[in-house]
């Protein structure tokens, strides 16, 4: 609330500043013409030649350019600042969500440990409690690594290992892994279509993308989930379409969905646990692969479709993809070198 007020205040201030600035520009031009008129009048009266036309024209044009340049710079700074401000607001919601997410499993673990301390728990229940604690510890771990990974991704530290893969092979393999992970039946997760093209991807990163999309579909489906994945291709791109029978997404939220820390606040949407980082991350990974992702939903109650576009290796942006491949290979060689030297070192140690 306070943030919103601050934002509207800074917008008003920015508009006022720009108005003032352009009035100043107007005054500058006005003064220039007045001066010129006066000069020509003086010239007429005293029949002398004032050699100022070329000079003053230079001042007029130069002055105008400088004015506009300052104004553009102001606009750019304002845009950056306001996006920073928006991020701060979202960061607050993120902290609130993460606090809830971190503290709930922690509270659960503490509760069970204190229960053990306070009571004699029957052995059957003891095992059940221990399983629950392990599950909560696992949840904590997942959340913490998700937060750590996102900051690594931010600094492009995430070690993507792109390779050339055939879409028809790698995508079904990944989907199968997802099916096993979420224990989904053939009806709940169905893969159709084909795309017999090569693409340059990191299977681990793509797994994160599919994992997030399927996880969201399951979380936001009130009945039993039915997720359809359709594989197809256009002349330049491989298309992966994810559709579900979930609760859908309000139209006005669709644009904001991929923003960092964004969470949908709607009474009809069940308050599912999350950090607002999943889809942001998905978008970042797809962007890294020179692809794009968009969402389609006719609103609440109509299901959701995510469409992922990945460029076909042979046709699109070959240079960029080749660069990515080279980068991966170089990184691998460096790593091998490190391993080799380490092996030599340890061999030396051993021989001593």
């Amino acid at each position, binding site marked *: 609330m306070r943030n919103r007020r601050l934002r509207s205040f800074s917008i008003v201030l920015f508009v006022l500043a720009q108005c003032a600035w352009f009035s100043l520009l107007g005054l500058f031009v006005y003064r220039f013409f007045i001066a010129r008129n006066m000069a020509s009048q003086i010239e007429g009266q005293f029949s002398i030649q004032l050699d100022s036309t070329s000079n003053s024209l230079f001042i007029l044009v130069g002055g105008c350019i400088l004015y506009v340049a300052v104004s553009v710079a102001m606009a750019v700074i304002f845009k950056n600042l306001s996006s920073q401000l928006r991020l701060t607001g979202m960061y607050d919601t993120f902290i609130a969500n993460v606090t809830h997410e971190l503290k*709930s499993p922690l509270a659960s673990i503490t*509760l069970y440990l204190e*229960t053990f301390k306070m*009571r004699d728990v029957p052995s059957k229940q003891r095992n059940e409690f221990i399983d629950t604690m392990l599950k909560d510890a696992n949840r904590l771990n997942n959340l913490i690594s998700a937060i750590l990974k996102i900051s690594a991704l931010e600094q492009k530290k995430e070690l993507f290992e792109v390779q050339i893969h055939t879409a028809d092979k790698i995508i079904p393999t990944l989907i199968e892994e997802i099916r096993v992970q979420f224990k989904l039946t053939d009806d709940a997760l169905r893969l159709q279509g084909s795309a017999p093209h090569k693409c340059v991807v990191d299977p681990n990163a793509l797994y994160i993308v599919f994992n997030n999309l399927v996880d969201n579909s399951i979380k936001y489906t009130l009945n039993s989930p039915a997720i359809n994945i359709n594989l197809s291709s256009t002349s330049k791109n491989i298309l992966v379409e994810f559709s579900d029978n979930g609760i859908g997404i309000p139209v006005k939220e669709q644009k904001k969905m991929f923003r960092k820390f964004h969470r949908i606040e709607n009474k009809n949407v069940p*308050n599912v646990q999350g950090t607002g980082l999943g889809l942001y991350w998905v978008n970042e990974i797809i962007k890294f692969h020179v692809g794009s992702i968009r969402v389609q939903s006719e609103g609440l109650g109509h299901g959701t479709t995510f469409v992922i576009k990945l460029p076909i290796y042979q046709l699109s942006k070959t240079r960029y993809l080749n660069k990515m491949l080279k980068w991966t290979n170089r990184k691998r060689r460096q790593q091998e070198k490190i391993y080799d030297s380490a092996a030599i070192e340890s061999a030396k140690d051993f021989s001593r």
Partner: protein
Amino acid sequence: MTAQQSNQQKILVVEDEESLAFGLQFNLQAEGYHVVCAHDGREALNLVSVEPFDLIILDIMLPFYDGFQITEKIRASSPQLPILMLTARAKIEEKVRGLECGADDYMIKPFHLDELLARIKGMLRRKTWYQKSMHDQPTFSFGENVIDFATLDCQAGKKRFKLTPHEAMMLKYLIERENRIVSRKELLENVWDISSEVETRTVDNFIVRLRKYFEPNPKKPIYIKSVRSAGYIFSSLP
């Protein structure tokens, strides 16, 4: 068994974290309470509307309705049902908001089991005392004031208003000990739980509020008088 069950106090646990709800249920059952669990706001309100509970343990971040909304809805129909908020939000504003909505107590996750159980015990003890006392004397009048302790409706002269559960409890406690000095400590222990983070100043604030409601001139009280360095004394006949 049935007789024992009918004596058992019934607690509703509203918590969307299944593991936490299960752990709470186990512990509360071990303490001899009858426990019912709800996993979201709608379920909680449905349950409250169909069966009576002695106490509610309420999470704030819940699907459909959050803890604040639930508290407000429950307070509209049953002003005296003790509500204990249990939440991960540690901000002081959240706490104040929870108490303003009508929650009786507030605990921050992760909490200590023994402290939680002690607070529940205290809340239930106060509820039992209040109900017994209300049963013996459902309404009370002094001067121009009439108080209905069941609905918490009050009439002071021409003014009509509703007391909060704590205000009602405090007034009831003073009335029961009419013409006797009641210390702040005694009030804290019996109206609030001593383990709550309420200071003696809170007692004074509540007294100020009660005087504003019922005294003809709150600055010169005739019903609720202060006794220096001892506490307060209530008398219905000035």
